[in-house]
């Protein structure tokens, strides 16, 4: 299918590691990118091309990919990482799609 599935909500203790996943058939062809969105703000790119961080994104963010699953890992999660996270990819027709988003809560 041309859908991307994410867990709606994930929680993590401060300083611990959390893995956010994104699953979809289209990921077998086109890799995912990841976006962080905090309340009242525009989305911000945090990961692209499997494991590339844009300038300004903390090193604790990393990405990986296997088959139809993309994973965004936050190692040593900080309070400021609490946000909604969306994955994105595209199909063979050039139509992009976002996952439903994961609300990350830092305890």
């Amino acid at each position, binding site marked *: 299918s041309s859908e991307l599935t994410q867990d709606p909500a994930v929680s993590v203790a401060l300083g611990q590691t959390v893995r956010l996943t994104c699953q979809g058939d289209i990921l077998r062809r086109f*890799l995912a*990118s990841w976006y962080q969105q905090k309340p009242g703000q*525009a*989305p*911000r790119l945090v990961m692209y091309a499997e494991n590339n961080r844009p300038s300004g994104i903390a090193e604790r963010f990393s990405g990986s990919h296997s088959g139809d699953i993309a994973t965004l890992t936050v190692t040593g999660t900080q309070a400021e990482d609490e946000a909604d996270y969306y994955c994105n990819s595209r199909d063979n027709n050039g139509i*992009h799609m*976002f996952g439903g988003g994961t609300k990350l809560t830092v305890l």
Partner: protein
Amino acid sequence: EVQLVQSGAEVKEPGESLRISCRCSGFDFTSYWIAWVRQKPGKGLEFMGIIYPGDTETIYSPTFRGQVTISVDKSARTALLDWNSLQVSDTATYYCARRLYSTGWHWFDPWGQGTLVTVSS
């Protein structure tokens, strides 16, 4: 500095038309795809469509095809999103974003600040 600056918030009544804009600077406008993304209140991101200003090739998500029109004003380095007849269900924040590309990889960076469109009678 690469920037996408969107037009301001709009309040419209059902049936009215609307155009919102995304002014691009700091990069070759004609060489990058520009996407539009909808976010309804409290909901997730939805890809609406994408346009290549160089030749105005446009790809719409099936959900939005026929509902909106995506275009560009090359001289103004601006991407445009038009509605002919707004509905209450169009109430949302709309974002534009530049798409970058490498073989097998696509990503959106940066994003505009968003334009809140409120449709209410």
